[in-house]
């Protein structure tokens, strides 16, 4: 069963509809799940505070090798810290989260995702497919090997190429919103469900 971690922000109904499983903030239920999804919108520090009571449970699950998918802020929280606010993230990956500079923020709309390595999440999805993004910060992994896909954001004559997905072993993160990305997004969620 998949546990979709509910931090009381945003509506997760369609994520649940795509993946099955339960929406929960109960650490016992998360512990029992065989896969975990951490969606997230909002401020890095504020959301991390809400996540604090569940932090150990989530880290245990990741260490046990259970598939984990972080969406948007849920992906950023996998890193050590963010320019957005004080405090630490889950520190699963080395590196931080940085703000877009010189381009219009937020980066909002449909943009192309180009896989940078083999990743089961993108199976059956063409390179350069469009996904829906809303964010002002992006991850900056120390170990570039974890980057699973990149996206190119051009605005005001500037260009920022940023990691739009990360993947290592059982840990996945996507900066875009698969639950808002129509068919490609559903395919990606389906790929995660089938892992």
């Amino acid at each position: 069963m998949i546990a979709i971690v509910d931090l009381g922000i945003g509506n997760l109904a369609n994520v649940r509809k795509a993946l099955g499983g339960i929406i929960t903030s109960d650490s016992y239920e998360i512990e029992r799940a065989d896969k975990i999804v951490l969606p997230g919108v909002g401020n890095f520090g504020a959301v991390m505070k809400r996540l604090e009571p569940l932090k150990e449970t989530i880290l245990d699950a990741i260490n046990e090798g259970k598939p984990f998918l972080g969406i948007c802020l849920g992906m950023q929280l996998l890193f050590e810290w963010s320019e957005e606010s004080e405090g630490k993230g889950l520190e699963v990956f080395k590196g931080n989260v940085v703000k877009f500079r010189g381009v219009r923020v937020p980066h909002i709309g449909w943009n192309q995702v180009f896989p940078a390595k083999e990743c089961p999440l993108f199976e059956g999805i063409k390179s350069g497919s469009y996904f829906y993004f809303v964010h002002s910060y992006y991850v900056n992994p120390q170990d570039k090997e974890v980057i699973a896909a990149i996206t190119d954001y051009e605005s005001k004559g500037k260009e920022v190429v940023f990691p739009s997905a990360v993947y290592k072993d059982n840990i996945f993160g996507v900066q875009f919103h698969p639950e808002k990305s129509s068919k490609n997004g559903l395919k990606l969620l389906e790929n995660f469900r089938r892992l």
Partner: protein
Amino acid sequence: MLAKRIIAALDIKEGRVVKGIKFQNIRDAGDPIELAKRYEEEGIDEIVFLDITASYEKRQILLDLVKRIAEEIYVPFTVGGGIKSIEEIREIIKSGADKVFLNTAAVDNPVLVSEVAKVVGSANLVIAIDAKWNGKFWEVYTHGGRKARGINAVEWAKEVECLGAGEILLTSMGTDGTQEGFDIPLT
């Protein structure tokens, strides 16, 4: 590179889709979820739902609809129509809408735009502008196209951008629903 977006707009009255021409002759056009799903199937990028019920007592019907849309639809969607307060906006976002839009309330009280932008973020705030050529300039209309406001739509668009609107939803009242294509001079 960011894609140009194709956005479908659906007018909603008491939980049903209605269709009009130039803001008149409103008739029933079906179930919002079914229509939205069809648009999604055809590859639409976003959907805008405009509630023209405009009665506070019937707001619950809209909120229930927003919840159903959030559960069924896998593209971003925007909800608006008759919204006057930050409280209503919070409820709509909480029900699962990605963005909200303001129209009349923004013209009546421009400060609201910046207040809302602070609460929900510019990315989630759209300002809808209904405009009609009055012989001299594109004039802003409010109250579902019933009231001319004497404001220049281009100036107003610039102002709301400064106040924190993330996007502008522009409707040319003269060509709305006529299937004669976009009003290019206005844009």
